């Protein structure tokens, strides 16, 4: 008897693909030049040091080569990308004050509703500028700062200058140099010592303009003993021209502090998502990355944890779902740079209909990082032979007091497991459903409830025969 394959539906993009007519108040010309960079800085009325930083980054961009590894990026033509599009609304703290179509966009995405129910604060970016930012009074009264980067640059210039692109210098790679030159928007969060933010903060990035780039910068400082959960969501409608996302995320986690950074990325299939994220963690601090990658044509995303304080730890939990025409190259990097540090990586991927999912990682243990522990587990499900699933991990260990374990697995659902469940009275379809839910469960349980529901909706599973 020929086995039918389990059908895993594509991501339903109907909500995300609704585009608004482009009504930018101001946008720069296509391409990348000194004049464009100066125009962005002038439009934002930035201090001179920031303009100098932008121009230095542009010089570095022009010198750096394209990556010689990873997905082919030949289709990216910066001469066709508009790097700054301002909707011209200004930033509001009341949804009702936004233009109707922008408000409707975020309504459809459920952001105002989520704000009411389960968030301490929300930021919403539309194209290159943040259009909405609000934080609950009880958070502000404890000294929590949650605002957009332009406001932070005006009101907290010293803090920003001391931290901005320190973890992600323009020389990191070509797209970080590009980011340094044309960045716009994003969020700034400061959580004072000892403050535990009870409900998450969330920033949502929406790119509406066709052929545009989005280069938001997120900078978070969590002081000693403080705690924060930050959620980042991204989407864009589909166009037949390329869009580019090259954001930057810098996270500073101080002694005994904990930061959970959750991302659900659901860009449209015409997006090149070349995002960079780094966290530095002090003594006994913790960074927890939760990452869901569903959209984009190409993604290159590897959140990096630098464990520089004794006893610092990182956790990375990620799922990647690559469908038709997608090449999603994701993973993580961890640098153990102090004694007693630990890291855990759990990565899952599903690829189907010609999609390509790649897990890429680096675990680096420096000589001084004695007593390091690291555990990496990655599992891949490939649903047909038109698809690809590759695992490319590297471990670079430079002392003999490290306990490092790495496991990777690829294959179809175990027939023995199905048989076992069936002997316990569970029907075949339900048995398979249980196993596949079990496959993604380590990820969904880490997501905020509404995102877990969203992910289950995105990955609609119809159990009919075995996977493979």
């Amino acid at each position, binding site marked *: 008897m020929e086995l039918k394959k389990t059908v895993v539906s594509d991501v339903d993009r109907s909500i995300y693909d609704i585009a608004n007519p482009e009504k930018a108040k101001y946008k720069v010309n296509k391409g990348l030049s000194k004049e464009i960079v100066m125009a962005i800085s002038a439009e934002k009325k930035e201090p001179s040091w920031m303009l100098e930083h932008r121009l230095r980054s542009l010089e570095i961009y022009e010198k750096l080569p394209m990556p010689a590894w990873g997905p082919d990026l030949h289709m990216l033509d910066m001469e066709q990308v508009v790097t700054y599009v301002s909707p011209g609304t200004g930033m509001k703290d009341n949804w009702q004050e936004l233009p109707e179509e922008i408000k409707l966009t975020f309504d459809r995405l459920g952001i105002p509703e989520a704000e009411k129910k389960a968030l301490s604060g929300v930021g919403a970016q539309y194209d290159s500028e943040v259009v909405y930012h609000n934080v609950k009074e009880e958070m502000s009264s404890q000294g929590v700062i949650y605002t957009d980067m332009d406001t932070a640059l005006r009101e907290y210039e010293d803090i920003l200058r001391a931290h901005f692109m320190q973890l992600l210098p323009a020389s990191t790679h070509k797209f970080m140099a590009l980011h340094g030159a044309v960045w716009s928007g994003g969020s700034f969060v400061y959580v004072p010592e000892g403050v535990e933010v009870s409900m998450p903060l969330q920033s949502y990035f929406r790119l509406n303009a066709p052929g545009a780039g989005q280069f938001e910068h997120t900078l978070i400082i969590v002081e000693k003993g403080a705690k924060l959960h930050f959620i980042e969501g991204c989407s864009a409608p589909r166009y037949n021209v390329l869009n580019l996302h090259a954001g930057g995320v810098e996270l500073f986690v101080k002694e005994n502090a904990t930061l959970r950074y959750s991302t659900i990325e659901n860009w449209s299939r015409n997006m090149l998502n070349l995002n960079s994220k780094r966290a530095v963690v002090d003594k006994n601090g913790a960074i927890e990355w939760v990452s869901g990658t569903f959209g984009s044509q190409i993604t290159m995303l590897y959140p990096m944890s630098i464990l520089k304080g004794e006893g610092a730890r990182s956790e990375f939990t990620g799922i990647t779902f690559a469908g038709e025409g997608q090449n999603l190259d994701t993973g993580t990097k961890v640098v153990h740079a102090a004694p007693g540090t630990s890291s855990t990586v759990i990565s899952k991927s599903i690829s189907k209909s010609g999609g390509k999912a790649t897990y890429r990682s680096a675990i680096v243990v420096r000589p001084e990082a004695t007593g390091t522990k690291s555990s990496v587990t990655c599992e891949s499900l490939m649903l047909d*032979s038109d698809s690809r699933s590759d695992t490319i991990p590297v471990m670079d260990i430079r002392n*003999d007091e490290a306990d490092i374990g790495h*496991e990777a697995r690829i294959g179809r659902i175990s027939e023995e497991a199905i048989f076992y469940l069936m002997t316990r009275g569970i029907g075949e379809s339900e048995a398979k459903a249980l196993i596949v839910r079990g496959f993604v469960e380590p990820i969904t349980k880490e997501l905020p409830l509404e995102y877990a529901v969203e992910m289950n909706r995105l990955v609609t599973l119809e159990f009919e025969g075995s996977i493979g």
Partner: protein
Amino acid sequence: MTNYSLAEINKLQVPTWRALKINGISIGEPAADMTVYAKNPIEKNYRGIEISRDMVEGTTEAAPLAIRDVKNYVKDLHSTRLHIRIPEGHVMDEPIILNFKLDRDNALLIDDILISAADESKATIVFRYTSEEDADCFRCGFTALEVGRNADIRLIKTQLLSHNHKNVDATMVNVAEKGHANIILAELGGEKSVSGYSVQLLGEAASADLDSLYMVNRQRELDINYRMAYQGKSTEGHINVKGALLGKAKKTAKSTLDFISGAANAKGHEEETVLTFSPDVINISAPLLLCGEDNVSGQHATSVGRPDADKLFYLMSRGISKEEAEKLIALAAFSPIINSIEPEELREEMITVLQEVMDNAEELC
């Protein structure tokens, strides 16, 4: 003369971040005045097989990325060429031994070896590389092994070069329908050794086991790159690597399970276990799992760390010194691979060399 160099060899099957410096390795060219190796490595006559110096391009498969550069280099500059043919149905009752002994008068060995094992044949082929310490020696070789249908071939390579010599080895193994290759490798010598193996399981139900052990001490460097490519249906191939690092040794292990589209029902497993005996060692591992076929089962596992503390404690509680206990634990970890090496004299030589390497973690012999 050659247009090829050893500047960027042993490439990772799929490149990754350049900063990790794992995508390839460079090894310097041999000195121009080295005396070319002129000895015959086969020291006796073997009945039933053909040995000639007339090479044919026996392999139908293009060399994969990992070994392509070395193959081209050797094809242009070879000092020793041999083609060993094992006829159809022939079963060897003793191992075929190729003994390469480098010395002052035979200092530069560039060996190009083709082994054609016809259908239904069975044989063991042993390569032994040694060199004299007080000479300046360099070895670079390419070996192609063709395993016919239902053939069963063991390839044993022991690299026991002196600690001050360089070694480059590239080996390609093609296995036809229901054929089996068992590759046993021991990397114990050389100042800098670069070793790349690519096994292509071409025919349906072809299978291979690649068992490798290494021990690196002092400031020596080892760069290994093993690839198992599953092309035929129901193929099965496993990579099992055991190693120990001492002193200021550096080891890079790249290994790839590569499931090609069409290799339905293929199975593969790769495992590397590394024992570290010094805080100054550098241990880099890149276990790749590449998959273009959904109906396969593949997994890899890597574990790195000091010898198990409970085992050490047990042995030390029996009056054995820490150094001796560590040596016993390492030898015990290697014993399944050591025990599969033949002939017996070579196996005993291996154990002696392993003990010497452990006794000389830091200092010169």
